[in-house]
């Protein structure tokens, strides 16, 4: 079965600085990969997804992620963060031969002025 590890539980960063949120996955088969964002007191919103093709995927709000098969990683990046990016970010993996998704523990991004 698939699993996801988010290496950083909390990432504090100053406004306009770049940020990378790390995600590694484990699976014996090919996978689909996702990043979701959860703003305070809200549900999960899809940021971006990797299905196939180009390993660099762009999402909403200026975020992008790169799929690295050899390192089994799917790190999320943004070149310049805003205060409004403060949220919890979840990486998720779904194996291509089943319909279920597994989430990482989440990374709390805090953007400070």
């Amino acid at each position, binding site marked *: 079965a698939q699993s996801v590890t988010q290496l950083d539980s909390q990432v504090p960063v100053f406004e306009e600085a770049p940020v990378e949120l790390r995600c590694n996955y484990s699976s014996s088969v090919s996978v*689909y990969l*996702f990043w*979701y964002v959860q703003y305070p007191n*809200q*549900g*999960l*919103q*899809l940021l971006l*997804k990797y*299905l*196939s093709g180009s390993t660099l995927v762009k999402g909403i709000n200026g975020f992008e992620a790169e799929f690295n098969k050899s390192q089994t990683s799917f790190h999320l990046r943004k070149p310049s963060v805003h205060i409004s990016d403060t949220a919890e970010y*979840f990486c998720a993996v*779904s194996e*291509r031969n*089943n*319909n*279920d*998704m*597994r*989430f*990482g*523990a*989440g990374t709390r991004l805090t953007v400070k002025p």
Partner: protein
Amino acid sequence: EPEVTQTPSHQVTQMGQEVILRCVPISNHLYFYWYRQILGQKVEFLVSFYNNEISEKSEIFDDQFSVERPDGSNFTLKIRSTKLEDSAMYFCASRSGTGGAPQYFGPGTRLLVL
């Protein structure tokens, strides 16, 4: 844009009582899910549902839990006899099919068991 909706947004109940959490998935979706998030913790998979039956369930989803799709639109999670540790945010999600279709989440129901 179609959304997953959940009712109620908040529910407070006494330990031992039954609760039913309701979800209306996106209308053309075929796969349905329930997740739980205890305050400050990760999102935990509870159960997936397809073609009117459970396709997978986690260790959390014990005999106290059940799911049902009573009609063509609603998808419910029932907790028969709530425990204090059932206090959490419960999220419903749906997806249209396979091939990497993402899951779309509802806003959640915050359940507090006293």
